[in-house]
């Protein structure tokens, strides 16, 4: 095939060039070319969302991502690079027909190969962590697939796929924040059925995975900065007009704030290119990278870079008249968020993901409300993995009893979840209606009478007054004392939702 030969040639050239530039080439990498570009789209957005290409995502995520793909919002220009100890590059086959020609393909490969050199040889733990994460996710995926297969085959329980999928994804999120303690099964139950065995097994692996995620060093600046540095070095050798013709085609590779900022720090870690490479391999995390400057120096550099990028970025856009009004503000805010990240690392000395997460957690617990007959947990979740459907399964997990599954375990209580979507601040309630009314033989954990409500949290004090129904004094029995870190409108929303739970039964 002609097209294969072209790519092989580009690949061999790129490897030779990297060897030439860095004095070494990566060894344990793989280039995965997707013949079907839509398959590449799927892998790209799923990996960006879940961390590794093998991670099981929740049905909520799945639905949203599918929709994004249908709408054509996938940022297909991105090169997917998985920087574990054995790095993987993912490309759609389309890039072979790149309008910029073979030189562009070579440049893109050099960008990836140089990062591969870094992750193969660095002393940082980052690539090892990524490799472990990949392994955990692969094990989880296999366990998941095998168990689901068995369930569907043996019992015709089609719901199991979605159930296990959501369970896995939600526990993965909650265990990052140590909130998965609502589900603590005794080990003796393991032999009861493959259902429990799976849940116990998966929980253990997810716990290990979470530990890995939390201890993972912050390494993005080093990784992307190094790629940017080498690619720029590669471009130096071209004539000005050739280089100028190439740059517009390297939109995803150059001009990304992580790369540009990382590059700026790295290039001050040594005099010569060789020296910088040696230094880069010794960096353990972004904190060590950014530690060379004080805050003041950094601020000057950032200001200068922002200015530079502002003018340079125009080459990547064809809608010139919208550049200043719409496109640069987007780029600018992306740059600013990276700048903030650098600020946090420098000021507070963050080295690992755990520290960064503590600073702005996506999931927070606000305590519990005691009602006469039940508890209601109040959470704040700023993550799209978990929707109401996902919480339902955790809630229902113990309520449902049937031959195919039954569990005496304590589960998540009724929940109120706060979530923000830009200007939208939602409080949603999820609960099971009275036990008296639950059916004795539900067909699946989904088959339970639930109350699900969502409310716009508003500072308007009288917003929901008029629609309140008589709660027959039940409201007085609720105890709100254990709640903490909530605003007044949030309290009002909680009270309203608790009342609503009673009237909607």
């Amino acid at each position, binding site marked *: 095939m002609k097209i294969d030969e072209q790519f092989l040639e580009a690949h061999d050239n790129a490897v030779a060039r990297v060897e030439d530039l860095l004095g070494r080439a990566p060894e344990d990498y793989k280039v995965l070319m997707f013949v079907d570009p839509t*398959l590449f789209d799927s892998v790209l957005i799923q990996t960006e969302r879940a961390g590794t290409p093998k991670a099981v995502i929740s049905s909520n995520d799945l639905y949203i991502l599918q929709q994004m793909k249908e709408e054509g919002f996938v*940022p297909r220009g991105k090169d997917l690079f998985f920087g574990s100890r054995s790095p993987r590059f993912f490309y759609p086959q389309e890039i072979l027909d790149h309008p910029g020609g073979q030189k562009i393909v070579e440049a893109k490969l050099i960008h990836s190969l140089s990062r591969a050199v870094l992750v193969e040889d660095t002393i940082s733990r980052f690539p090892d962590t990524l490799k472990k994460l990949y392994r955990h996710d692969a094990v989880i995926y296999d366990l998941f697939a095998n168990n689901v297969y068995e369930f569907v085959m043996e019992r015709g329980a089609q*719901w199991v796929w979605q159930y296990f999928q959501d369970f896995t994804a939600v526990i993965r999120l909650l265990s990052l924040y140590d909130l998965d303690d609502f589900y603590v099964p005794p080990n003796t139950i393991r032999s009861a059925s493959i259902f429990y065995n799976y849940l116990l097994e998966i929980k253990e692996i997810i716990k290990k995975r979470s530990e890995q995620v939390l201890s993972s060093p912050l390494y993005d600046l080093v990784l992307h900065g190094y790629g940017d540095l080498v690619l720029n070095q590669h471009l130096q050798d071209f004539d000005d007009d050739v280089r100028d013709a190439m740059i517009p085609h390297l939109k995803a590779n150059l001009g990304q704030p992580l790369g540009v900022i990382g590059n700026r720090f790295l290039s001050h870690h040594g005099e010569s290119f060789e020296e910088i490479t040696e230094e880069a391999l010794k960096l353990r995390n972004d904190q060590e990278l950014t530690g060379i400057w004080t805050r003041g120096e950094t601020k000057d550099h950032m200001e200068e870079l922002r200015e530079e990028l502002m003018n340079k970025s125009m080459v990547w856009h064809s809608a010139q008249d919208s550049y200043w009004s719409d*496109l640069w503000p987007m780029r600018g805010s992306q740059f600013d968020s990276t700048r903030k990240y650098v600020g946090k690392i420098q000021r507070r000395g963050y080295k690992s993901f755990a520290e960064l997460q503590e600073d702005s957690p996506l999931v927070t617990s606000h305590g519990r409300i005691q009602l006469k007959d039940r508890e209601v947990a109040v959470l704040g979740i700023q993550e799209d993995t978990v929707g109401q459907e996902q919480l339902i399964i955790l809630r229902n997990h113990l309520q449902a009893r049937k031959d195919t599954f039954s569990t005496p375990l304590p589960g998540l209580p009724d929940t109120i979840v706060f979530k923000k979507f830009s*200007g939208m601040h939602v409080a*949603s309630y999820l609960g099971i209606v009275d036990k008296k009314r639950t059916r004795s033989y539900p067909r699946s954990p989904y088959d339970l009478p639930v109350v699900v409500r*969502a409310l716009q949290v508003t500072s308007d004090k009288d917003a*929901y007054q008029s629609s309140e129904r008589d709660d027959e004094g039940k409201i007085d029995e609720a105890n709100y004392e254990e709640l903490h870190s909530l605003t007044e409108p949030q309290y009002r929303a909680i009270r309203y939702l608790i009342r609503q739970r009673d009237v909607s039964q």
Partner: protein
Amino acid sequence: MSDKIHWLTRAHYPDPLVDYSSTDFIIEFQEAAAVLQQWRNPHLGRSSREGTIMSMASTARAAYDMIQQKLLTTSLDADEEKELIEKVKVYKFMLDRTLPEALKLVNLDQLLTQEDIEEFIRKHLELMGEEYGQQLSVAEAMMNQLESITDIEITDEFGRKRRISRNDVLDVIGSVLGNMLVRQVSMWPVDDIISRPRGRLHLKKTYRSAIMREGRVPPVNIRTEDIKVVDKDRLSLIYFIVDLSQSMSKIVFKDGLTRLDGALLTSLGLYYYFKLVNRRKRREFDSFNMHIIPVTKSPYVISDDAKFEDFLLGAEAKGKTRLVHATYAAIRHVHEHYQNVNYDVQLVYLTDGRPNVPFEGPLPGSNIDSGMESYFRTANTKTPKEAQRCMVQLSKTFNYLNRVRDRNWNISYFLMAGQRFKSSTLWEDTKHMLAGVTNPVLIDPTEVDSLGRRIIQETMVSED
């Protein structure tokens, strides 16, 4: 070939975004009933509407982020960039302004009907125009997604919740429920229309024509001029006469369904069944022209879809049963609107069979002796006097309609009740009232799915 490069197809690498958990989704009768209840009680449907807005918000947030990523990383031509920029703006506006307000209005039950939503969309399109100083070309199409707020949440066989559009539900109700009802009661005007495909020989009419020509039974031969072909393109007028009296509010079916719910569901099923048939036939005109007559103090005729939905949403069981008045309204409507066209008329009654307000005035056929008066004189019945008078009036009217030659009048009489009703004297009275015209049919809509199954089984047996 280098061992570093791997070419992957779907066979090597399964698509991570395939949803294996979704199974074929079949709406069952229970769902149809639940849908009706949700419709009629906005409180029940509220959580579904809120859920719709939540999922729109999640999607908008994901789209907002992903489009920005795409703009910043992927080479695009100017038109593509402009379109994406506009989309980002609309998503931003929706997240900041439209969806929060929509959620609040839904919380307060102020965004219920199609009109509410259209009005809301119009208002926000204007606001968006003001915010960005121009009308964005993609805005309207994107904002129209809000119409899915009227979507309805139902559960699949495992209890998982799905949202499907209101129209889909109605189609299903029409094809499942309506189809089964029609099978049971043979509402088709079978004698000369539609029961056979285009161009089929109409045996009965052909024989009749041959007999009339020869003057003897059976005819010796049939000539070409005798042959009558099924007239396919005829039009039928259908009047659903729906009882809304106080007694209809009694709960007689399982799942807490009242007689009224049953009647509404039955009319819903039939209404959408005929609509479906109309659509399938793809003619220039609809074969079935449908009207609804609620049995209220002064019965009126509803003949368009939007009003029909309003009626379903707002129908309440109260007041007395003016069945005769409603019948009169139907007959008058036919005479006024279809005087010169020979359309068939089908009167479909959905009632509990307890008419109690006699009609004061001249009724067609009042001089006919239908035998109903003498029946009441001799029969040992518990039916109240008022109801007896009504039934006599109805019986006379039906007999009159059965005899008039200007057009075909057909009558279907559905009683909302369980099987036990058959042992009551009211059942006997009703049968007498309809003697020679039609048979009353007991309908328990909650049993319709099992009846449907039985019918299918029986058909299969007889085919063997």
